[in-house]
């Protein structure tokens, strides 16, 4: 998407006192105009923002450019929307805010994108350069504040710097390990004029990115480890999506008959319905996945960073396995898990260099390992509650399972943070990349609704579902109004258990059921939706789930379903923090709430 140096806007009126035609290349424009012209040149068609004094000159110039502005209800929403837009499309998302409180409201959204390496550019207005550092009205040191949660940030005080800086920001945001970049532009830089030449403002490469030497010894070493492994497992992470290495991962798995476990953010990178797919690893992964990792003699980590939710206690992690780490960010190598071979570079390129060294594995050796894992699934699969007949109770797992069936696994699902997020990951089977959007690293409650708005705008032809808890939904519920104003065909499932469920679960397991501050009163979400002119429906039994889902899908425009689910249900299996991967709390055989096959 980069580097499209087309003339930016045919409709440009009197821009900076210059004739409108052919517009913006090599003409004199105001800094404000340059902001939009540069964004347009970078291929941006939509931004998510909220105006205010210090960014007003830019807003004033916006009407001259073919860029859609989505007015959010809180700047945190703008950042999450840009984030959701980026995750759904693979392009850079853009958020705009004013100085001071507008800028600080972005911070949670920026940190969310940082922790999950999402490419995003945030543009903030800033007080005039003459009064910088004087505690001027609505002045805040936003580059200082966001320094640790951005990949990089910039202050722009001159109109002539606007285009080069924004262009560099896009390059930084999407290159190497992606991440959010903030550009803080003073009001006087927006008001002053400068020559605008999109092509001339192209960033000059000032330092090389770490690159893979495709002929290197490490490739051969990795190939040798793979060839000789008896019990290999591929760990597929977010990097599979970011690198677009779906075909390569699949080829590796199929050619060498290697089962694939995914991280939460890697789900969809390898089809869940593929016979070699194990599902999600880690804290709430199924037992057979984590057991396979513990028993493995080789782990091939593809674009994943061995997060603590994934490894459990490091001392006992995959003790018998050699480890190959394919990673674009050298700082991740040996950070958590000591590896035997590191391939530093883009995953797709690395796998393409590796695959020619791998001849297909003979069928015999393979089947023993795959069969061993398959055998260990047996019991868990029987106890999978989504397969059980309707007992009159409504479990969140049922909701996820039925949603998956109804949408044939093809919807983009945007989840919030908590129990419902884990149930979604367990029961909604993602076959396509970029169909699960969730905040993994920061675990930001309130993410789902705004991120889904961004995703829907990125992919208007895709069915998009929000799955949020009653707690997290209330953190950014104001964005219902944005969805209504933008007339988005968005489906919203609130999984309403009357608790901050994930915290309640920890209190149940580790704090003697002391449910301190986790029961939660909520508004009637259906009425709340209606107050926004959004249709809604409450669902109390499993029998109603499919029909409500069908109604939502059939309805043009936003639709909210309030699923009133079991209140004290828990997510199983679970690795308690600080335990080893194989020390899981398994699904209880007898539990007053969760039926099992033996009941």
């Amino acid at each position, binding site marked *: 998407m980069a580097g499209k140096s087309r003339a930016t806007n045919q409709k440009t009126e009197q821009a900076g006192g210059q004739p409108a035609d052919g517009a913006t290349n090599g003409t004199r424009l105001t800094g404000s105009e340059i902001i939009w012209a540069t964004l347009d040149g970078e291929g941006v068609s939509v931004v998510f923002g909220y105006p205010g004094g210090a960014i007003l000159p830019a807003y004033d110039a916006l009407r001259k450019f073919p860029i859609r502005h989505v007015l959010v209800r809180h700047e945190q929403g703008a950042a999450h929307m840009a984030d959701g837009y980026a995750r759904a499309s693979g392009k850079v998302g853009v958020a705009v805010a004013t100085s001071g409180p507008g800028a600080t409201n972005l911070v949670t959204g920026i940190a969310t994108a940082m922790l999950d390496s999402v490419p995003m550019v945030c543009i903030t207005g800033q007080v005039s350069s003459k009064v910088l550092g004087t505690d001027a009205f609505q002045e805040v040191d936003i*580059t200082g504040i966001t*320094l640790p949660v951005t990949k990089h940030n910039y*202050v722009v005080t001159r109109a002539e710097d606007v285009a080069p800086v924004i262009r560099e920001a896009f390059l930084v945001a999407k290159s190497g390990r992606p991440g959010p970049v903030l550009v803080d532009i003073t009001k006087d830089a927006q008001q002053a004029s400068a020559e605008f030449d999109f092509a001339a403002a192209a960033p000059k490469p000032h330092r090389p990115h*770490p*690159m893979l030497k495709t002929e290197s010894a490490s490739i051969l070493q990795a190939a040798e480890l793979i060839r000789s492994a008896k019990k290999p497992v591929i760990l597929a992470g977010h990097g599979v999506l970011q690198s677009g290495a779906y075909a390569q991962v699949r080829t590796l798995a199929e050619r060498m008959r290697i089962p694939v476990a995914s991280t939460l953010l890697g789900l969809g990178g390898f089809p869940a319905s593929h016979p070699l797919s194990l599902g999600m690893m880690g804290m709430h992964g199924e037992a057979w996945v984590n057991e396979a990792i513990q028993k493995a003699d080789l782990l091939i980590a593809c674009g994943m960073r061995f997060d603590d939710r994934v490894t459990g206690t490091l001392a006992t992690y995959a003790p018998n396995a050699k480890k190959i780490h394919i990673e674009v960010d050298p*700082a991740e190598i040996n950070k958590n898990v000591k590896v035997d071979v590191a391939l530093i570079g883009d995953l797709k390129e690395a796998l393409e260099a590796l695959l020619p060294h791998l001849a297909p594995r003979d069928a015999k050796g393979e089947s023993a390992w795959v069969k061993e894992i398959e055998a260990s699934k047996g019991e868990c699969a029987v106890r999978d509650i989504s397969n059980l007949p309707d007992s009159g109770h409504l479990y969140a797992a049922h909701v996820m399972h039925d949603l998956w069936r109804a949408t044939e696994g093809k919807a983009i699902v945007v989840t919030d943070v908590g129990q419902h997020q884990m149930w979604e990951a367990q029961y909604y089977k993602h076959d396509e990349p970029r169909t699960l959007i969730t905040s993994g690293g920061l675990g930001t409650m309130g993410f789902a609704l705004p991120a889904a708005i961004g995703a829907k705008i990125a992919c208007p032809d895709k069915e998009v579902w929000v799955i949020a808890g009653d707690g997290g939904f209330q953190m950014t519920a104001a964005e219902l109004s944005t969805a209504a104003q933008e007339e988005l065909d968005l489906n919203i499932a609130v999984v309403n258990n009357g608790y901050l469920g994930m915290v309640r679960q920890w209190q149940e397991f580790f704090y003697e059921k002391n449910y301190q501050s986790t029961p939660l009163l909520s508004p009637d979400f259906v009425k709340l939706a209606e107050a926004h002119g959004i249709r809604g429906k409450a669902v109390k039994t499993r029998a109603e789930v499919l029909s409500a889902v069908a109604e939502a899908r059939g309805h043009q425009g936003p639709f909210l379903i309030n699923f009133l689910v079991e209140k004290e249900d828990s997510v199983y299996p679970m690795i308690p923090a600080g335990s080893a991967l194989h020390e899981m709390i398994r699904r209880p055989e007898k539990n007053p709430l969760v039926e099992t096959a033996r009941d």
Partner: protein
Amino acid sequence: MLHTFVALVEDKPGVLTRVASLFRRLNINIVSLTVGHSEKVGVSRMTIVCDASPTAGHRIAASLYKLENVLQVDDVGQLSHVARELALIKVAATPKTRSMVFELVEVFRARIVDLAPESMMIEITGVESKIEGLIQVLNENGDRILEISRTGRMVMRRGQHTSRVLEAMRVPGLETPDELKAEEVGSASDVLMAEEAGLRD
């Protein structure tokens, strides 16, 4: 263990904060940090000495290189290099006690750069141990030290060597670029040994 990094960085406002902030985030104490112009216009050179676990070197170097303003990183580590520090030391000395200080300064190849009725100022360059040696002897002699200002370590690798960016990507125990290996082997020198051992300038 002390690690020494050389970073070439863009000479722009805020770059020092980014570097310092990285160490703060990693909860690593910076022992010394010197910044000044390099041989390239618009590029500053930092020598950063920090105290971190023996295995932390690679991660610190790679994290430094993640900062957009950092153009090159070199983990000097065990590679053969010259390290220097400059110190100014002011000691209380009257005309009667001066001669003792003069003698010490001579032995340490230091210089007197200011002389006042009640004090004198010593300038000394060398490796840290040499400077610390002088300070210790001054203390043992009972010369009252009034002020010390030290620059912190700055280092430069020995021999013909154009530091390559990809060295920041080097993972210990894994692949070592061939050109690097050659350098490491070739440049150990007796001068260095003498340097580390003692008083030679």
